[in-house]
């Protein structure tokens, strides 16, 4: 596997992430080959909000893990913009296990800064600011088990933002939430993204969510995971899911999805 760090400052390097011909196959205990990703070609511009949508088991999570550097590719190249590296400025928010249960919310948010040996006082101040941003200041001293699902994801977002990331990877972060909470958090996320202009890659299996958030929506097919269609979403923000243009796009996306996603 090659990870190319692009150092040359020219126009081509406006990409935050570029994957070229990336494939990945897993092997079951019985030795059976399970193709997860097949020949993925994908570029993500800096500051772009990209959403990925596809059926369960189409390799969405594997794709994110490869970009994050948590997994290796079998073939193909992954090119990250200058300085992007796991443990430094790539943040992730997952659906589950997003917080350490033995730490309070504030200490969870501080985790990344603590690993970097930031001064305690500075950590506390920064954590407080972030918790205020995500609307969780009152629960700074609560443990994760005391929080609702939506509050946990707010805390996870604050924890991720504490890294001051350039790239934010999100793997169905709102998948387990009820509709109202989900909408609330989507709005918060968009607001944060517009403010910070970070690059976001967001995996979901909810078409509404993909269209509501993304500048661009990629449809993935399964076995092996591959990009089957791409939509540029030129709707102005804030987007209104009941608007005609939105529902038309919804239908187009729906029709292009593999049958298994329903």
């Amino acid at each position: 596997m090659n990870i190319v760090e692009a150092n040359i400052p020219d126009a081509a390097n406006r990409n935050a992430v570029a994957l070229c011909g990336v494939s990945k196959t897993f092997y079951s205990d019985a030795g059976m080959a399970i193709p997860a990703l097949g020949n993925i070609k994908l570029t993500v511009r800096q500051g772009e909000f990209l959403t990925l949508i596809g059926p369960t088991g189409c390799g969405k999570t594997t794709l994110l893990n490869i970009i994050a550097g948590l997994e290796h590719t079998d073939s193909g190249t992954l090119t990250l913009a200058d300085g992007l590296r796991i443990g430094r400025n790539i943040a992730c928010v997952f659906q589950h296990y997003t917080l350490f249960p033995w730490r309070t919310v504030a200490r969870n948010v501080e985790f990344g800064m603590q690993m970097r040996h930031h001064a305690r006082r500075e950590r506390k101040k920064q954590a407080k600011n972030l918790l205020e941003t995500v609307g969780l200041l009152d629960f700074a001293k609560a443990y994760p088990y005391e929080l609702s699902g939506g509050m946990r994801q707010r805390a996870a977002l604050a924890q991720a933002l504490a890294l001051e990331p350039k790239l934010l990877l999100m793997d169905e972060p709102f998948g387990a939430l009820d509709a109202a909470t989900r909408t609330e958090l989507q709005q918060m996320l968009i607001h944060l993204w517009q403010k910070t202009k970070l690059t976001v890659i967001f995996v979901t299996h909810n078409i509404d969510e993909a269209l509501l958030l993304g500048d661009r929506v990629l449809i993935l097919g399964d076995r092996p995971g591959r990009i089957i269609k791409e939509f540029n979403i030129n709707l102005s923000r804030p987007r209104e899911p009941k608007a005609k243009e939105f529902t038309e796009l919804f239908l187009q996306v729906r029709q292009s999805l593999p049958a298994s996603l329903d």
Partner: protein
Amino acid sequence: MAPGRKLHSEKVTHKKNIYVILGWTAVPVLLLVIWQLAAVRFDQPWIFPPVSKVLIQLAHPLRDHFASGSLLSNTAISILRVLIGFILAAGVGVSLGLLLGALPSLRGLVEPLVEILRPLCPIAWLPFAIVVFKLKTLPQLFGWDFTHTIFDEVQLGMVFVLFVGGFFPIVTNTLDGVAGVRRNYLQLARILGANRRQTFIHVYLPAAMPMVLTGLRQGIGLCWFVIIAAEMMTGTDSGIGYLLMYAADMSAMDIVIAAMIIISINGALLNYLMRGLMRTLVKWQKKET
């Protein structure tokens, strides 16, 4: 954004119903009354003493018996032995458990040995330990002949047997705790920039803490079992187990039963203390699934 619509209530509603209250009061009192009446009627106190005689013994814990010390002094000796043995077992057991959990290759080398020695009853080690350590005491180990304190009663053989008793539950639970840390948390730590050392301190250690404490709790309970049995063996001349055995030989059943009650209450107390420690150290664990 309204933060906190549903903060889970953390108060566990502890229903102290009438049966529980009766179980702590009326039932024991009733049993004591029956015991008293039966013993008085039976009228052979060297076999079956009445409650009153046992209570008199418990009310005079400083009275010397058979020139072997009192109930209190012998209990203190047993507790001291247990604490020393347990602290040693805890120190070595937790460290080794953490080490084995973190280094799979070392675990492969050492675990078979642990699994073979673990089922061996700690008391079975006693004759061997007495031969090896003779009757050497803790102060003698440090080169002081006699300190004329309670420490003169802490024989190395006893400490060794207690160590064996406490060590295995502590090491195996710690090991399981470290090895069972969810991969998700390790991944999260990596994303958040933790290096190997930081991951160990900030993820493995706290994640394993509940299991470590479970091991310590089991360990101290087992140590208390072991010391009583060990003190009943030949070659000992102090401790609550010794006094119990001696009193039985002297047909002083009231002292035997008083000693039994003390042993039982002490064991319950140790367990209660460990549980309190667990609750304060891992309060985050309450509802975590």
